[in-house]
C-alpha cells in the first residue's frame, strides 16, 4: 500500500504546504501586483502540471508508434486530457489575475493568444480521434497528431510570446519564469511545493481515468 502510493501522500503534503506557506509566507511588496503575487504558487503551478502531463502523453504516443500496443495509446489520450484540464485552469486563472493587474480578463496578449492556440490544437486531437471509427487508424493517426501538437506547444507558448511585446513576464526575450528573478522567500514554496505538488495531483487524477477506462474495456470484452 505505502510502497505503491507514497507519491500520493507526498502530493497531498506538498499541496497542503503550498496552501499554508503560500498564504502565510512572506512575499516581496510590489506595486500593481500587491498580494496577487501569491498567484504564482497556483496559476503557474497549473502550467507546470500541464507541461508534465503533455510530455508524458507525447512519450506514450511515440511508444505507441514503436510498439503498437493499444494500452500506450490509451495512456497518451488520458494524459493529453489531463494536460488539457490543467491548461484550461491555467488559462482561466491567468485571465482572472490579468483582470486585476493588466485591467482586463482578455487583452489579446501574445502569451494569452499563444496559450489559447496551444490548447485549441489539443482540442483538435480529441476531435480528430473521434472522427475515426477504425480503432487502429484512430490510434495511429492520433499518435502522430499528438506528437505534432506537442511540438506546437514550444512555438506557441515559449518562443512567439518572447519575440514580441507582452504584458506577461517573459516578454522581449525574458523567460516567463526567471529563476534569478524570483524572490528566495517565494522560491522555497514554489519549487519544492507548488511545482511537484500540482504535477503529482495531475498524474494522480490521470491515472484514475486510465484505470477506469481499462476497467470499462475489460467489462466490455467480458460481456
Amino acid at each position, binding site marked *: 500500500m505505502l510502497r505503491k502510493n507514497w507519491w500520493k501522500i507526498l502530493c*497531498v503534503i506538498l*499541496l497542503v504546504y503550498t496552501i499554508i506557506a503560500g498564504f502565510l509566507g512572506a512575499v516581496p511588496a510590489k506595486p500593481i501586483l500587491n498580494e496577487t503575487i501569491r498567484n504564482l504558487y497556483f496559476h503557474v503551478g497549473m502550467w507546470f502540471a500541464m507541461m508534465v502531463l503533455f510530455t508524458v502523453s507525447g512519450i506514450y504516443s511515440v511508444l505507441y508508434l514503436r510498439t503498437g500496443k493499444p494500452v500506450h495509446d490509451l495512456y497518451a489520450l488520458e494524459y493529453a486530457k489531463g494536460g488539457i484540464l490543467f491548461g484550461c485552469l491555467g488559462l482561466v486563472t491567468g485571465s482572472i489575475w490579468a483582470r486585476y493587474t493588466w485591467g482586463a480578463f482578455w487583452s489579446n496578449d501574445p502569451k494569452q493568444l499563444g496559450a489559447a492556440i496551444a490548447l485549441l490544437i489539443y482540442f483538435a486531437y480529441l476531435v480528430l480521434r473521434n472522427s475515426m471509427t477504425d480503432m487502429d487508424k484512430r490510434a495511429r493517426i492520433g499518435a502522430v497528431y499528438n506528437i505534432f501538437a506537442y511540438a506546437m506547444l514550444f512555438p506557441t507558448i515559449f518562443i512567439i510570446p518572447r519575440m514580441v511585446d507582452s504584458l506577461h513576464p517573459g516578454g522581449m526575450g525574458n523567460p516567463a519564469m526567471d529563476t534569478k528573478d524570483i524572490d528566495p522567500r517565494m522560491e522555497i514554496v514554489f519549487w519544492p511545493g507548488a511545482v511537484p505538488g500540482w504535477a503529482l495531483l495531475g498524474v494522480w487524477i490521470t491515472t484514475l481515468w486510465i484505470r477506469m477506462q481499462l476497467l470499462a474495456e475489460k467489462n466490455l470484452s467480458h460481456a
Partner: protein
Amino acid sequence: MHKKVQFWSLLVLLGLMGLVGRAQDSTAGRPVEMADRLRADGKIYVVVAVLLTIFIGIIAYVIRLDRKISRLEKGSK
C-alpha cells in the same frame, strides 16, 4: 525502512525551509500596499482554513475514488 526515514527527513527539511523563509522579511524602497491590516487582524488564517477544508474535501473524494477503482480492479481479476 530506510526509504521511510528518507521521506520523513525530507518533510522536516521542507518545514524548516518554510520557517527560514518567513524569518528574513524585508521591504526595500517605498512602501507598497499589502494586506497588512488583514494579516494584523488575523483574518488571513480564516481564508487558509477555508481553502484547506475545501482542498481536504476534494482530496478525500479523490482517495475514495481511488479505493473504489482498486476494489473494482481486484474484483475483475
